[in-house]
């Protein structure tokens, strides 16, 4: 019996001790007519060897194309040490650290994580993770509504430049609580949320304002101005940031001088493999003053009976297992292991390593953008500076182009036409530090051919001018 250690002898002894004839007797309280019939469609057991052959075949089947996709998940180098340590049994197979004395490993690590996140974000406190960036935003907004004592409205301003899935997820999670998400348009030239877009709401009762940095198009927002607007209008400011970008960009805790109230985002760039979208982790930081409104686990430092330092789950009275229907959130299991990886990842890279990685991504994407822009009909869609993603306009339909590139084992970007029909034929591209010159050249070359084939435009590998 796979994973079951019982010998016949032991089973006999145990049944005898219980005083029943067979294991079936232990299920006697279940109404007989409810008992299962055979599970016909479940295949018979496989050995580990058979299962790994099956899985290896499937993993191989999907190839390992050159990936120029971003859009909220980024292909970064993860130091080998990260997962070799993270998958150590003591981290991998422990539960949530309810028994603090038997969980100092996880607890100290989480405290270190909280310390790193607050340092990176310039905020006062951090929780120990939420599911992912999108659901973290939803939780952040619920938190903002709770925390904003000055606001009676349940209206939240959300830039259209924010990741479309984040907007959907926030909407899906908030809609049953009567919270209204109001969309702010983006500047059609710059790709950012112009402060002018907020004018209509000047002086209105707004519970919260969302500020992405960078936004979905990779474009940098005027975070200082937006934060200032929020403060002036007594709206809670909620930043949604890429944590890697924060190593080189002004952190939310400093925006507009005094910083935002809450910041959240997707932790994936900090040590989580792409892995089809998960497990990743959402992070959430805030000002000290509103920590009791924060959802999720929080670790605190304390002393033991001998006066020695130790760590423990704290502020549990906010949580569902204590406060039940009045909890700050329903979250229980979070993304602990991903946070373990992120902590080790950040420790290994340090600020300098994150900065170098961020700079390399920026440089690679800039290089790619420059080369692509040499192709006829291909150009950056927005004028404002970006972090490591850019929307590129194409002379032909994006989906055809991407399909053709995929046939060459290049994932050439995201077709955003579904979410932004107003932006026409365009792809969102990203070249992280892992993309090599060879891959970038090959992308440009293949794209040139694809455009030629699809659009009849002659192949143009030379710069357009000069």
């Amino acid at each position, binding site marked *: 019996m796979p994973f079951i250690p019982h010998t016949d002898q032991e089973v006999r002894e145990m049944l005898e001790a219980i005083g029943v004839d067979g294991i079936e007797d*232990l299920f006697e309280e279940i109404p007989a007519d409810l008992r299962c019939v055979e599970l016909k469609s479940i295949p018979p057991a496989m050995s580990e060897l058979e299962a790994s052959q099956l899985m290896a075949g499937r993993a191989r089947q999907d190839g390992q194309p050159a990936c120029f996709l971003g859009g909220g998940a980024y292909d970064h180098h993860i130091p080998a040490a990260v997962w070799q340590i993270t998958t150590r049994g003591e981290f991998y197979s422990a539960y949530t650290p309810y028994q603090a004395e038997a969980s100092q490993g996880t607890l100290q690590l989480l405290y270190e994580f909280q310390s790193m996140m607050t340092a990176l974000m310039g905020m006062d406190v951090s929780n120990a993770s939420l599911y992912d960036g999108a659901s973290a935003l939803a939780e952040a907004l619920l938190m903002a509504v709770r925390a904003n004592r000055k606001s009676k409205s349940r209206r939240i301003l959300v830039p259209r430049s924010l990741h479309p899935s984040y907007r959907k997820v926030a909407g899906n999670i908030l809609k049953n609580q009567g919270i209204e998400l109001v969309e702010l348009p983006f500047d059609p030239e710059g790709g950012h949320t112009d402060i002018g877009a907020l004018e209509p709401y000047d002086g209105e009762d707004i519970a919260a304002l969302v500020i992405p940095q960078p936004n979905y198009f990779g474009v940098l927002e005027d975070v200082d101005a937006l934060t200032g607007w929020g403060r002036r209008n007594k709206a809670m400011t909620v930043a949604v940031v890429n944590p890697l970008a924060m190593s080189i960009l002004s952190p939310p805790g400093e925006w507009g001088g005094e910083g935002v109230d809450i910041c959240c985002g997707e932790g994936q760039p900090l040590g989580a493999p792409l892995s089809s979208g998960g497990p990743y982790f959402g992070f959430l930081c805030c000002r000290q003053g509103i920590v009791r409104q924060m959802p999720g686990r929080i670790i605190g430092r304390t002393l033991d009976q001998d006066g020695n330092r130790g760590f423990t789950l704290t502020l549990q009275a906010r949580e569902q297992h204590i406060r039940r229907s009045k909890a700050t959130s329903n979250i229980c299991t979070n993304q602990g292991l991903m946070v373990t990886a992120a902590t080790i990842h950040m420790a290994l890279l340090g600020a300098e390593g994150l900065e170098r990685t961020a700079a390399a991504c920026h440089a690679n994407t800039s290089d790619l953008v420059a080369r692509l822009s040499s192709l006829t009909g291909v150009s950056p869609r927005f004028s404002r500076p970006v972090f490591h993603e850019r929307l590129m306009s194409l002379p032909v339909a994006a989906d055809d182009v991407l399909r053709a590139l995929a046939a060459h084992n290049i994932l050439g970007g995201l077709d955003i036409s579904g979410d932004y029909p107003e932006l026409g034929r365009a792809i969102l591209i990203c070249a992280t530090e892992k993309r090599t010159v060879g891959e970038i050249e090959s992308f440009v070359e293949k794209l040139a051919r694809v455009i030629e084939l699809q659009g009849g435009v002659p192949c143009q590998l030379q710069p357009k001018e000069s």
Partner: protein
Amino acid sequence: MMLLIQEQSKQGRRAVAQAPLQKAEITDIPEQFRRRRSANLPEVSEMQVVRHYTRLSQRNFSIDTQFYPLGSCTMKYNPRGANEMAMLAGFLARHPEAPESHSQGFMACLHDLQEMLKELTGMQAVSLSPAAGAQGEFAGVAMIRAYHDERGDTGRNEILVPDAAHGTNPASAVMCGYKTREIPTGADGDVDVEALKAVVGPQTAGIMLTNPSTLGVFDRGILEIARLVHDAGGLLYYDGANLNAILGKVRPGDMGFDVIHMNLHKTFSTPHGGGGPGSGPVGVSERLVPYLPVPMVTRDGDEYHWLTETECPRSIGRLSAFAGNAGVLLRAYAYARMLGREGMSRVAEYSTLNANYMFKMLQEAGFEAAFPERRATHEFIITLRKQAKERGVNTMDFAKRLLDYGFHAPTTYFPLLVPECLLIEPTETEDKGTLDAFIQAMRTIQDEVNTDGELVKGAPHTLPVKRLDDVRAARELDLAWNVSAED
């Protein structure tokens, strides 16, 4: 005491090999957007990091090192093979937005898993996307709400929740905009059906139930409960946290449930990771199929396709940016394939055998059962109220003392309705020898309580730290390391 990694930092130190060796200059991002001062992250060497976290890890109890009979949490062996398979380079490298042409292998796994979970739960369709049990609960209740709303049945504003329910149940209901109403438990551990009758009605959107419940018993009145709620126009939500107890034995769909979440990190042996990630797929009966959260995978001949908002316009939508905790799903899938058809019901059988054996042996050792007349399911409850009252040694003291004997403590003080309780779940992957050793430790502590109560109240004595001061932690909040706060 172990230093924090931050306390090991020295200015200018780096794990050089881990970042680009050249620092690219950034010329086209204006100053105003740039960070002025580097983040105060630790500056340490690669070896310091490896050594620090390796040593930290040794300060944890875990399934790989200890018996961990945490009730309601199903701490069973997490197959190392499943980890290896989910970490295959091809799976790790797949971008969530990779086109279907480059995703067929991955999607095949998801589709197979959906199908298996359907069969195991007796539901009509399954969506894998919820990231954990609580998000599954949210999805489930949101579907219940979408169902009533679409029918214009908008007067239903209440979700019924037994008092034994996990805290996530009422919290999830509230997040979906419902009020909750608690149903008491009868003296026999089953839901008090008379009490239920008294409150079920036209305002009832549904009921959230675990069966077996967190009291370690299978609710024998389940069919009547289902009838009562359905008759009133409400739907039944099944909290699948305890599915391990009945896998392949009885199916929630057959009990009459309309929606269920499963905790793959419990029943399907994916690791708990010190607090996650989990995975909480939801299954539904016919009438809720249109509302399932996206994305899902469908098969068309030999090809797999994504179902998203476009194909499922009535869906409650997506709850995370991508497809949920894919890596966890792959682990669960690998585990399910290794268990196979025959293995499913054995999970229920042997976890139940282990629980009933311990239940019996502990009672014989003089421990008081919360429901002595009942069969245990895969877990059971003992109450230490006598010890607390007579000797002033409470459940938490008992729990801490167990740590000294090398066992993780069972769940303490949950469910809330049983005073001074321990909820004990051994799981099927533990052998009799380990159970006997645990029982012996309980006996020993019992003796210690009688002869040297202070010893127990001062526990733990053998761990890296002594009993921690939780009150201080909450009162003098210290949630992040701060240079200036140190000497």
